[in-house]
């Protein structure tokens, strides 16, 4: 609530529920988004992210609860609420028969950009999304990466105060993902951005605040930093030069390391070992275990060439978060 007090709230969701027949897609979710925030919706596929974003965007109506966008109710004042948002759906649907420029002009007119400013707005969207070079191409002839960017351009062409992006990097190659994330961060400077993803590193790269959603329920929310600390490494990968048996024995004797796995496929003189932390280890204990492991290897006369923590996937974070809330059954 403190964050909401500091920034004027632009999206307020209270007790939102959406049912499709007997299936509950979103279950009593409440949160608020302040102006200028970049909020990441994080959850596995089918968690209810897309449904929530569709309700925010005004495409589907809530079964229960209240959603306001810039103080406009999405049900009672839908048109005004929709004027405040730019939305990119997950599948990025576009009209394949239109040229990129034609499409963005059409969308700008639809979003009621005044005629005098339409050209400039379209140019800005083209430039920001990096699609100037394909402006005169037919959308149907574009690659997936370009189509995704046309979808982004569409979301921002009306210069809406709020941008909602559903899985904005799905289907892009690593270079395109980096560009898209940079664009989203840039958008954050003068837009409020809400995006969804099932990739943990994506919210860490883009978002200032994270909402974790699991089976339709909001499991946790907080600044990205807080989620990052939840993301404990589960193992450490060490590359050593020397006898692998000695190295394995050294690591096996270190407190807090449960199991050591020899990784194959490392070239040259190096050997890669995967040391998995003991279950009971807390964050500080793990750090100490790494220190001791390296010291032991060096003392045994082995050369340490690389140390890297691994693990801490989205599944691990969810497990950590839901363990207390949902005790395991017998």
């Amino acid at each position, binding site marked *: 609530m403190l964050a909401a007090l500091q920034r004027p709230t632009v999206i307020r969701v209270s007790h939102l529920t959406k049912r499709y027949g007997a299936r509950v897609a979103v279950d009593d979710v409440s949160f608020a988004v302040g102006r200028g925030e970049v909020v990441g919706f994080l959850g596995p596929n089918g968690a209810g992210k897309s449904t929530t974003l*569709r309700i925010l965007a005004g*495409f589907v*109506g809530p079964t229960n609860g209240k959603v306001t966008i810039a103080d406009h109710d999405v049900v009672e004042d839908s048109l005004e609420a929709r004027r405040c948002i730019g939305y990119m759906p997950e599948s990025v649907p576009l009209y394949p028969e239109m040229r990129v420029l034609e499409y963005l002009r059409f969308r700008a007119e639809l979003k009621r950009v005044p005629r005098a400013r339409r050209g400039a707005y379209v140019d800005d969207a083209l430039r920001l999304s990096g699609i100037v070079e394909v402006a005169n191409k037919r959308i149907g002839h574009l690659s997936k990466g370009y189509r995704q960017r046309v979808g982004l351009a569409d979301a921002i062409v009306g210069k809406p105060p709020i941008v909602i992006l559903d899985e904005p990097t799905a289907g892009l190659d690593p270079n395109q993902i980096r560009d898209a994330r940079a664009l989203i961060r840039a958008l954050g400077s003068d837009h409020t951005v809400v995006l969804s993803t099932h990739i943990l590193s994506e919210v860490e790269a883009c978002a200032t605040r994270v909402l974790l959603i699991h089976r339709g329920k909001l499991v946790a929310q907080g600044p990205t930093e807080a989620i990052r600390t939840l993301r404990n490494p589960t193992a450490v990968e060490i590359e050593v030069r020397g006898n692998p048996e000695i190295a394995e024995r050294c690591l096996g004797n270190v407190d807090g390391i449960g199991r050591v796995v020899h990784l194959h496929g490392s070239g040259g003189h190096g050997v890669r070992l995967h040391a998995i932390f003991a279950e009971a280890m807390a964050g500080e204990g793990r750090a100490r275990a790494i220190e001791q492991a390296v010291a032991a290897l060096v003392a045994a006369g082995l050369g340490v060439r690389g140390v890297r923590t691994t693990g801490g996937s989205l599944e691990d974070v969810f497990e950590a978060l839901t363990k207390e809330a949902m005790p395991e059954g017998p």
Partner: protein
Amino acid sequence: MKSFWPIYKRELFAFFVTPLAWVLIVVFLIVQGMHFFLLVDHFAHQADVTGDETPLSAFFGNTVLLYLVVFLLVPPMTMRLFAEERRSGTIETLMTAPVSSAAVVLAKYAAVLTTYVAMWLPTVLYLVILGRTGTLDWHTAASAYTGVLLVGAAYLALGCCASALTRSQFLAMIWTALVLLVLFILGIGEFATRQGSVMHDVCAYVSVWAHMNDFASGVVDSRHVVFYVTLIALPLFVATRAVDAWRWG
């Protein structure tokens, strides 16, 4: 209603950028040209032509020619209006823009209606040719075209509604064709039922055949006009409600 224009323009663009519209127009004009030729040829060889049987009245009414083309034309014209957008998912970007459901329905409907008018426009040339070689009652011609416009507008509204009610273009086409066929057969029932019975009156009221005969002979009956305006407004209203209902599906 501000969103009417951009959607209307895009619909027309989408229609004419695909071959479908051009194929439909070409087929329509070839068929209508043949009809016109056959009718004029027929009347030219008749020794005694009475005043109430003219190429004009036969072109627009009293023959099955008009219904055949309109039947075959309307379902493929309207099938894609909503069904296509729902299949491809573009309905999601369309409906999350600040547009009202009524504006979307009206814009799409206006676009097919414009296409329909554009199809009929070249046939005015036939009448000009007819007028040059003989006397032509332009009042009757205007009344006949009013009939063509009203019948077409009502059929297109029904097709538009069918497209909004299903996700499949094919089903939308089949539904439209079925409804139009039932409507036509119901009208033909006028000749099959006993004069004076309620069924006869109902059939006569909805009979496209009878309506077009009146329009083609220069009679613009207000009852017919009311019937068609209702048949335009009602499906469009249902289509608007259907578009609203998607949100709650």
